[in-house]
């Protein structure tokens, strides 16, 4: 068994990735809260973690769950109309960061659909449930989001 590194190391190494993905999944503002929820949940479970080899994957799984929780909690409420996109989306050195930044700049419903489908690997029916819309509407949001991403990242 690999010994668990001090949790501070885990935070230092993965905070940026987790924040990037959460911003893509739930938007800039909600990401702050989901970020704290993610790391609190991780900290709670950490001493019992059996395998320290894939901490990144472990954290991202928790982050996706928190993002889904967030969407479920908001599911019954109408989603806000498009947020003002960042004036300049700076592209980071990593392709991952660039992609998630682009996802973050999508309108909320498309953003949520894309991140739930590809970040959390949810089927259309569950995305629909999380967003509080019909599967058809979820599929449409996903389609529109992907189209926009392709254009953005081309």
């Amino acid at each position: 068994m690999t010994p668990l590194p001090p949790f501070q190391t885990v935070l230092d190494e993965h905070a940026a990735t987790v924040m990037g993905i959460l911003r893509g999944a739930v938007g800039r503002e909600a990401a702050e809260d989901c970020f704290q929820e993610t790391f609190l949940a991780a900290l709670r479970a950490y001493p019992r973690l059996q395998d320290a080899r894939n901490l990144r994957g472990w954290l991202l799984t928790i982050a996706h769950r928190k993002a889904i929780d967030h969407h479920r909690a908001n599911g019954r409420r109408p989603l806000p109309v498009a947020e003002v996109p960042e004036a300049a989306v700076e592209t980071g050195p990593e392709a991952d960061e660039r992609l998630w930044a682009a996802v973050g700049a999508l309108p909320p419903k498309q953003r949520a659909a894309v991140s739930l489908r590809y970040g959390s690997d949810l089927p259309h029916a569950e995305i629909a449930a999380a967003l509080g819309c019909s599967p058809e509407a979820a599929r449409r949001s996903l389609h529109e989001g992907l189209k926009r991403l392709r254009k953005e990242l081309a």
Partner: protein
Amino acid sequence: MSTATADTIEELKARAAREGLLDVAYATTDSPFGRLLLAQTKRGLVRVGLPNQDTDLLLADLSARVSPRVLEAPAALDEVRRELDLYFAGKLDSFDLPLDWRLSSGFRQRVLRAIDRIPYGQTRTYTEMARKAGNERAVRAAGSACGSNPIPLVVPCHRVLRTGGALGGYGGGLPMKQSLLELEGVLDEKSSS
């Protein structure tokens, strides 16, 4: 651009502390001898790392032996830092800090607890410490208990000398031991033993 803001991380740590999830809080602080690592549990100060000791190794050791819930939380160590600053300035002769002894056990812990009672500006011998810990003949073991002291400075192992007055050893290096004893007025400056 996806870096979590300092505020978010600050708040995360405050929430962790409130929920009782901060098992080991640590901070580093400057001293006249270099950077010190200070680590504290809910019971009290558990580890002081001297400047010549590797911080990453010390933190890994705390993670393995106390709890992996180790987070940098400078505010939690404000009081420790304050007392150490006063001590180095020659303005404090007795620390008033709760201590967590869990990193030592048995005879070693008894030696360290005896050392903890040596007053400022006084010295004892390894033999005396061995006797106080219940085994006068275990002088070498008493020496190695000093050498493994997890809370140096606050538990003043620098006040333990060889019979006859030779400095013996010190985890932070003999020059540091010499300076601490000069600070406390035990040794004259530049006197060598």
